[in-house]
């Protein structure tokens, strides 16, 4: 059984009743999923005509709720509706549930993309050359392969370069290792 969401979260959610339209509710819910920010708190306070402190709490509560839904994979309306307290405003409850269900697939994909991971292989290019000579052997005919891997590290913070390129050269024996792995 999924852990429960605290009642403070739901009392904060009642503030959404002050929203002038359903679109505003949707906007606040979706934005809150990424996490609190100064900008979001200010916009929410203005849109709902509430204090900054109240807006901050509302954003935090929405964040907690959406992440709870995501973590426990609550994917049906019944599952989500059942976590609300009995006394919660019915229409608001239905609206929030609808918004959460609409956005869950995208949030899930986003979470999987950003999960802890080693650098991911984004692209692969290769080229086969024939080495025809070198400083130690004037004439030869030896195939060699250059492989360029484009790696993206999802754990790098956005202000650092997250895509790196690595070029690796392979000869016969290395090629056999790779062939053997399959």
């Amino acid at each position, binding site marked *: 059984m999924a852990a429960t969401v605290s009642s403070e979260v739901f009392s904060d959610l009642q503030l959404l009743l002050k929203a002038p339209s359903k679109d505003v509710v949707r906007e606040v819910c979706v934005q809150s999923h990424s996490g609190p920010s100064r900008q979001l708190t200010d916009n929410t306070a203005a849109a709902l005509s509430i204090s900054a402190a109240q807006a901050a709490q509302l954003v935090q509560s929405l964040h907690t709720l959406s992440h709870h839904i995501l973590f426990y*994979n609550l994917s049906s309306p019944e599952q989500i509706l059942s976590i609300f307290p009995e006394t919660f405003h019915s229409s608001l409850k239905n609206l929030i549930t609808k918004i959460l269900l609409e956005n869950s697939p995208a949030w899930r994909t986003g*979470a999987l993309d950003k*999960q802890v991971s080693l650098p991911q292989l984004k692209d692969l290019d*290769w080229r086969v050359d024939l080495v025809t000579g070198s400083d130690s052997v*004037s004439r030869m005919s030896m195939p*060699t392969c250059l492989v360029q*891997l484009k790696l993206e590290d999802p754990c790098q913070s956005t202000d650092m370069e997250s895509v790196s390129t690595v*070029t*690796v*050269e392979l000869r016969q024996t290395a090629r056999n290792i790779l062939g053997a792995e399959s």
Partner: protein
Amino acid sequence: MQPQFMKDVPDSVCTDFQNLNKLNEQQFIRLIEILFQFLLEPKETERFMQQLAEFAGHHGMSAGPLKTLMKSVLLVPQEACKKNLTAEQIREDLMAFGLGEDKAAHFSHQWAEHNASLSRRAVEQTLMVNQLVDMEWKFGVTVGTSEIQKVGSIFLQLKLVTRKGNSTENIYVELTLPQFYKFLHEMERAKASMECFS
């Protein structure tokens, strides 16, 4: 007499080879043995120098001139390797340098014996950029994350060990299953392309 094949070797090598004629058969054989031992393991310079010093001491020669002589003699097998010369071609050129017939025959015979190893070594030492030395892999299933309790996605992790100068560097890569199949497909294509030329 002028050498026919090893034209890029300096003239002073002639004098050096004529000095080699002063050695008796046993001495020459031993010296050539030391030479080829070094050629097969070119990193063992200290051992090479030490063996030359021992040889010099054993046969009442000065180590200094002997080492200088051998450094010059080394140019011959290096040139021969570069030009892919046969044992017969080397024998002819050694005699052109002034080396006695018996000694030239012995040298070229040793060359013929070690040719394959020496050629392979020369080819292997051809400049490589970020050479792939080793690869390790593991398959796994992600069962959950801090964001999603139950996941169930397959991953493949690769560790590529590459040579960067004198040390190695590890590159870690993670691939999803579709990415892995694409990687495999591309590597098979590269392998097929290389096989056309080998």
